[in-house]
């Protein structure tokens, strides 16, 4: 007999402060609180540390702490290891998790420091001098054919393919309608429009409510092909083929049938109540040639007017794959590191498969340079970008721009509790339950996400100015502006950075 496991969190209610208004009961979708006569009862076992009750309590009466572990302490057989075994011994099932990798790997970003100017090359003041963060994503020619006409005018003879122009190198990554609520999507789409950036639709199709923002949307084609038709492709500003995802490299996706309500059914073009399964592979892609064919097919379908991106998860041979993608007509390669978020993934994949985005971007950048084609394709980094410093470091390691996911959700209130897969998100984000979805005001949410992007953009301008650089292009791949702090020599070689002091 295994018996019940100890609860993870402990909720306390200060009886002096509590006025028994019941807001905690209304707000907790996990059933932690209930009323017992004139008292509020707490069932800490149900708590996910989503903080909704704390945020909504008018009297600050609620406290939350991690429950001290009562297992015998052991360096190898941690609480998580043991509880996973107990759960699997009981159920015989794969354990699911939401959000990104929850293991304690060292964060490489935190062991890289940025540079600043002193005296000999002046730092720039973004308040008084232009600092350009405008970024273009897409294919570029290696060289230009410019001819001078009689009279001196210059004629551009090289035909450029369409690029996406963003006013900040921060974009919002793909989170599908299904994984997150429509209100959350609308909030982020409005934020993308306000800040001059783009947002991914995820593989959930493009809901009619997003049509007003379609010129800021990147539509996704995943293996399930949900919601994909010519109208969908034509509405997006760009198209992204999803091969892999950082949180679950090598596996597909699954939206349970019970979540497929009428609205999602229409948007994804699947029967109501049926499971939406994206297989691990695209069943028409078993080689780089097949991928190139799909890229070409999508371009052909949209008359070569839209950039096509390809997203892959960061894995050990990511550089060679990216080089293959670069040699197809694809315009950008998106590399999603192993800290990328997800609505639901087997915990074993989320926590153990893939590599960190920092190393992946550096090795992709190196491979593309070795082949002399780095400048012909854009590289987008995603998976665990937490702030403007991470953005700057990712760009210095070779990215053109980044996608954020969890950070955008956090801007709307998400507390990264990691229970997205249960569909009970009390913040109205990772849920389809109408009463919970209604909690997220798209206007307010969009302002918060837009504020976040604006704040990071301002910080990026300051970081660039401090480094004496007035254009983001000159930070891209600029390893001289980075130094490794307490990184081992092998990793510094992969990242191509010098140690601090050198």
């Amino acid at each position, binding site marked *: 007999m295994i018996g019940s496991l100890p609860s993870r969190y402990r909720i306390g209610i200060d009886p002096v402060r509590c006025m028994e208004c019941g807001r905690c009961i209304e707000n907790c979708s996990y059933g932690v609180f209930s009323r017992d006569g004139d008292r509020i009862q707490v069932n800490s076992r149900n708590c996910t540390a989503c903080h909704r009750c704390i945020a909504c309590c008018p009297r600050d009466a609620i406290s939350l702490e991690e429950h001290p572990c009562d297992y015998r302490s052991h360096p190898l057989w941690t609480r998580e290891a043991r509880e996973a075994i107990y759960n699997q011994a009981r159920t015989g099932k794969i354990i699911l998790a939401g959000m990104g990798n929850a293991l304690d790997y060292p964060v490489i970003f935190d062991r890289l420091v940025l540079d600043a100017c002193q005296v000999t090359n002046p730092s720039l003041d973004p308040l008084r001098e232009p600092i350009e963060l405008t970024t273009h994503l897409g294919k570029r*020619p290696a060289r230009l054919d410019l001819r001078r006409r009689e009279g001196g005018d210059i004629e*551009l003879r090289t035909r*450029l393919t369409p690029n996406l122009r963003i006013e900040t190198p921060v974009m919002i990554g793909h989170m599908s309608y299904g994984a997150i609520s429509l209100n959350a999507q609308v909030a982020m789409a409005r934020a993308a429009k306000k800040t001059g950036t783009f947002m991914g639709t995820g593989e959930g199709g493009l809901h009619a409510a997003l049509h007003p923002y379609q010129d800021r949307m990147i539509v996704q084609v995943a293996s399930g092909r949900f919601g994909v038709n010519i109208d969908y492709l034509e509405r997006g500003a760009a198209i992204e083929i999803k091969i892999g995802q950082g949180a679950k490299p090598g596996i597909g996706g699954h939206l349970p049938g019970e979540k497929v309500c009428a609205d999602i059914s229409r948007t994804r073009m699947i029967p109501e109540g049926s499971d939406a399964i994206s297989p691990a592979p695209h069943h028409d892609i078993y080689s780089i040639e097949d991928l190139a064919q799909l890229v070409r097919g999508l371009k052909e379908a949209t008359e070569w007017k839209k950039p096509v991106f390809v997203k892959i998860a960061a894995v050990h041979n990511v550089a060679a794959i990216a080089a293959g993608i670069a040699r197809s007509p694809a315009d950008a390669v998106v590399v999603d590191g192993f800290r990328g978020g997800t609505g639901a993934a087997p915990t074993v994949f989320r926590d153990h498969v893939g590599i960190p985005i920092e190393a992946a971007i550096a090795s992709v950048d190196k491979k593309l340079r070795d082949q002399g084609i780095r400048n012909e394709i854009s590289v987008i980094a995603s998976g665990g970008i937490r702030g403007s410093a991470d953005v700057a470091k990712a760009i210095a390691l070779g990215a053109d721009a980044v996608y954020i996911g969890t950070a955008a959700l956090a801007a709307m209130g998400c507390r990264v509790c990691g229970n997205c897969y249960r569909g009970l998100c009390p913040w109205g984000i990772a849920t389809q339950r109408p009463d919970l979805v209604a909690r997220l005001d798209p206007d307010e949410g969009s302002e918060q996400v837009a504020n976040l992007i604006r704040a990071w953009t301002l910080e990026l301008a300051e970081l660039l100015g401090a480094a004496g650089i007035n254009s983001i*292009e*000159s930070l891209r791949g600029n390893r001289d502006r980075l130094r490794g702090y307490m990184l081992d020599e092998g990793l510094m070689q992969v990242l191509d950075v010098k140690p601090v002091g050198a």
Partner: protein
Amino acid sequence: MCGIIGVMDRSRRTMDGSGIRQALSMMNERGSGEGAGYAAYGIYPDYRDCYALHVFFDNVRENKPLLDSTLAQWGTIEHDEAIPTYGRPNLRAVHTPWRYFFKPDPSLALAGSTTPEDDIVSALVMQVNAARRGALIFSSGKDLGVFKAGGWPEDVADFYRIEDYEGYIWLAHNRYPTNTPGWWGGAHPFNLLGWSVVHNGEITSYGTNRRYIESYGYTCTMYTDTEVVAYLVDLLVRRHGLDVDIAVRALAPPYWEEIDRMPDAEREWNGALRLAYAPAMMNGPFAIVAANRDMMVGFTDRGKLRPMVVGECGDRLYISSEEAAIRAMEPRVESIRMPAACEPVIGRVVA
């Protein structure tokens, strides 16, 4: 810091090196005695058709045979000799400067090469310098030569007896290294084939520029940001065939805001230039003077964070960090102006 000066005579009348020595010395406040150098065009009329390879040997006896055999594999050494030098009390000779007059065999270039001789010499320079076998080729153009060393401008000039050379374009540089070591290879001018470059400032985009240029087969070996400028100019002008004023626009482009305001056709090519050559764009404070056998060009960074003064007198065009340096060389200078940021100043030889 650093002081630069360039002078060209549009009608190819030559000047000896005494004037530029004096002009460069005028800017000693801009130097620290850790490097100075001169580039002169038109100085080897007897070997006009040969590539003049200027080499620093760490040890002639040990390092030269290897270079001789490498060169012999790729062409013919018409003549070679030690570059005449004259001991100076303040200048410690850590390398032996040597010069080869070399004719590559164009049949050995890669198929499809449009400039086979240049391609062979450029590849040789990269190969020899990257091998670090005690030989550094620091000048490789026809009928031109770079003379540089660690020391003050006067000492370097006297070490090579610069006044004995007659050239129609001269570049000179007084170095104040703040980011990288002061050593002979790190002194300016930097040269590759016909292009020589002197630079006052720091290129904060060096990491980006370096990774870009290295993906085209160039190897940066001289520990100095200016080295990439010479290679970038070679790539854009010689290999990609851009006009020099367009190449300057790729290296120091207008802001997107300005591009957005341009008329359609102009906006189109300026935007394309920024997209295609984003990693070649140079950031940070700089004033640069570059020259090849037919022209001299000067330009600054987009914020004009380093000074650049242009003077003219008859057929002569002067570009310098300081007006005083120009006046030291040409007291009767007829016009002095300070170009706007990024505005290229181009002088072409007409004769």
